[in-house]
């Protein structure tokens, strides 16, 4: 074989292979912007999962999509005779993406914000958008959960690129806007007449909930993608500065706690003990009963990030991790009771389903970005897998 020709061909093959790898590496590995949003709707505790191109309601008893029913309670069928399920995908061709929780309005409809800058009004019974089929145009993509303030008749929307916007949920007119220097990925917290929200521009903002007038802002020294927690007259929030903050309602830092890694979840407080996880896989339990932080325990639980807000119930602190595991920890000392693997990274907040109806015991439901296992339900007490949902 002609060595010169084969050498040239070999080099070209090498170039072509690496050009292909190069281009392949340029393409984002994930098409999705974020992980599923989970929550519970209604007395039946229907579980919503908003992920990528659709919003689905799930029956908590068996993990199957809710079936649509007519006024007589009969299951609706499609043209092929299959039961129609509660699933909303946005208008055809819209390429709508959903990563935030829907807002329930009057127990009759949902307001669903999408990443492609649209807001849809979806019938709670029909799973269809009968008005404004193409959706209401939003000022930007939305990842944060919208919040409806019924007292002020305002819907608050954090825009993924920057700014917090307040619109009236009737004519969708923008009432006011607070400018930020980076994205708002956290839902606002409304306490009395004040609204608090965090931004990736490192600030915690306190506004008048009606007018949007800024009362104060506070530098959290790092990006803050999650909202603060209000407890006993104080605010608690974490940031990428590797800190948890205790803040007065006047915007003064009362105490700080150093964590090992970025904090990307809203903490939870049960019986005066704050629980939080960080992206290094450590979970913290801090006593806040007398103001300030006093460590009860900290436990390096997982090999990868813990982004979920810990679920605290009975003797357990339950967290999920990017290492594809759900951990049941001791509330007393942070030791691990048991671990349950799932099919994907656990980044969505964990949902608690209370017993009732056909549900005999409490369950915890976790979400993953794995389409084969979007939701997994375990019994609270012993972590027994009950069902999983995928599509």
């Amino acid at each position: 074989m002609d060595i010169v020709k084969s050498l040239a061909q070999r080099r070209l093959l090498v170039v072509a292979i690496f050009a292909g790898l190069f281009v392949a590496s340029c393409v984002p590995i994930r098409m999705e912007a974020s992980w599923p949003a989970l929550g519970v709707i209604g007395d039946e505790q229907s579980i919503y999962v908003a992920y990528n191109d659709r919003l689905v309601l799930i029956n908590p008893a068996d993990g199957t999509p809710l079936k649509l029913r007519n006024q007589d309670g009969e299951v609706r069928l499609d043209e092929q005779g299959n039961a129609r399920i509660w699933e909303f995908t946005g208008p055809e061709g819209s390429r709508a993406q959903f990563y935030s929780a829907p807002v329930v309005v009057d127990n009759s409809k949902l307001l669903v914000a999408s990443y492609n800058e649209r807001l849809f009004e979806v019938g709670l019974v029909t799973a269809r958008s009968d008005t404004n089929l193409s959706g209401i145009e939003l000022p930007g993509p939305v990842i944060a959960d919208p919040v409806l303030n019924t007292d002020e008749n305002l819907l608050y929307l954090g825009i993924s690129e920057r700014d917090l916007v307040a619109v009236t949920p009737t004519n969708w007119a923008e009432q006011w806007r607070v400018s930020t220097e980076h994205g708002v990925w956290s839902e606002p917290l409304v306490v009395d007449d004040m609204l608090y929200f965090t931004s990736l521009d490192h600030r915690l903002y306190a506004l008048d909930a009606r007018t949007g007038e800024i009362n104060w802002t506070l530098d959290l020294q790092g990006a803050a993608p999650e909202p603060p927690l209000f407890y006993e007259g104080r605010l608690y929030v974490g940031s990428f500065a590797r800190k948890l903050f205790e803040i007065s309602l006047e915007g003064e830092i009362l105490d700080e706690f150093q964590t090992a890694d970025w904090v990307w979840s809203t903490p939870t407080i049960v019986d005066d003990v704050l629980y939080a996880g960080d992206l290094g896989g450590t979970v913290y339990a801090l006593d806040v009963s007398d103001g300030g932080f006093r460590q009860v325990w900290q436990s390096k639980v997982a090999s990868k990030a813990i982004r979920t807000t810990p679920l605290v119930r009975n003797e357990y602190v339950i967290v999920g991790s990017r290492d594809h595991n759900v951990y049941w920890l001791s509330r007393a000392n942070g030791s691990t009771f048991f671990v349950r693997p799932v099919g994907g990274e656990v980044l969505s907040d964990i949902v608690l389903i209370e017993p009732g109806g056909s549900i005999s015991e409490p369950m915890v439901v976790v979400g993953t970005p794995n389409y084969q296992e979007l939701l997994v339900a375990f019994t609270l007490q012993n972590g027994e897998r009950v069902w999983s949902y995928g599509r």
Partner: protein
Amino acid sequence: MWDLILNPFITLLTLLYSILGQNVVLAIVVFTVLVRVAILPLTAQQQRSAKRMQELQPELKKLQDKYKNDREKLAQEQMALYKQHGVNPFGGCLPLLIQFPILIGLYQAIIFTLAATPFQLIDLSGRFLIPGLDHLVPLNNMWLGMDLTKPPTDNPTWALALPALVLVTTWAQSKLTVPATPPSDNDDGRPNQAQAMTQSMTTIMPLMFGFFSRSFSVGLSIYFVVSNLIGIVQYSLMGQSKLDLSKVGIGRRAKADKRQPAASDEEPAAKEKLKAQPSTNGKAKETDRPKAKTKTKNR
């Protein structure tokens, strides 16, 4: 394993961003320059190897003519020739193989650092190798009214100039680094496929990168443009004989390079033939050309 390359690059890029007044574009430019300078020895070695191979072409052509019917002997003689001149025929491949992961890591670092979505931002966590960089996250992603994390099609109209710049600079760099000789036929009359492939790659690659850069983030397109410009300067400074910038419309057109291997090496042979054969009026020119007996037979 890949993090061994990626994390240092992410750390360096973020550090530069901090030092350079939190200007992402400036950080990308300096970052690219630094990495390209760091791998300059590899690039130089690759180019030297390519140049030596190019210089051996006339000798290789002679061997091909001499042993065209004995492939095994041809291969032996070619290897002997390489050995005689101290040339490793694969000497240009190893530097290339080493460079590619570094260059891939370089632009991946830009993708990671310009995190714009929750998934991208959480993927950035835990990658800084030195403390004190957390407060910079997320980086300021706006420049000249463009969102650096979005593709040109999701930015103001002028952002569409970037894919065009990517195409032009990629083409210019390839023109400067690949010989511009047209595909010549082999002695058996068949086209030289290797040369043809090389020429088509220099056309396809710029078009491919230009097309794909419409989908890349603006920040990544800026990296490609800067990297290509650095490559152009780099190859020019390395003094390659084929680096005639007038080919790409820069500066005066240089005199034609008379060291065309085929012509220069056939010239003495042609002269020898002229001496051996008595010239006859009207037929002298025909005797200058080597006779292609194979072609005649095929006709």
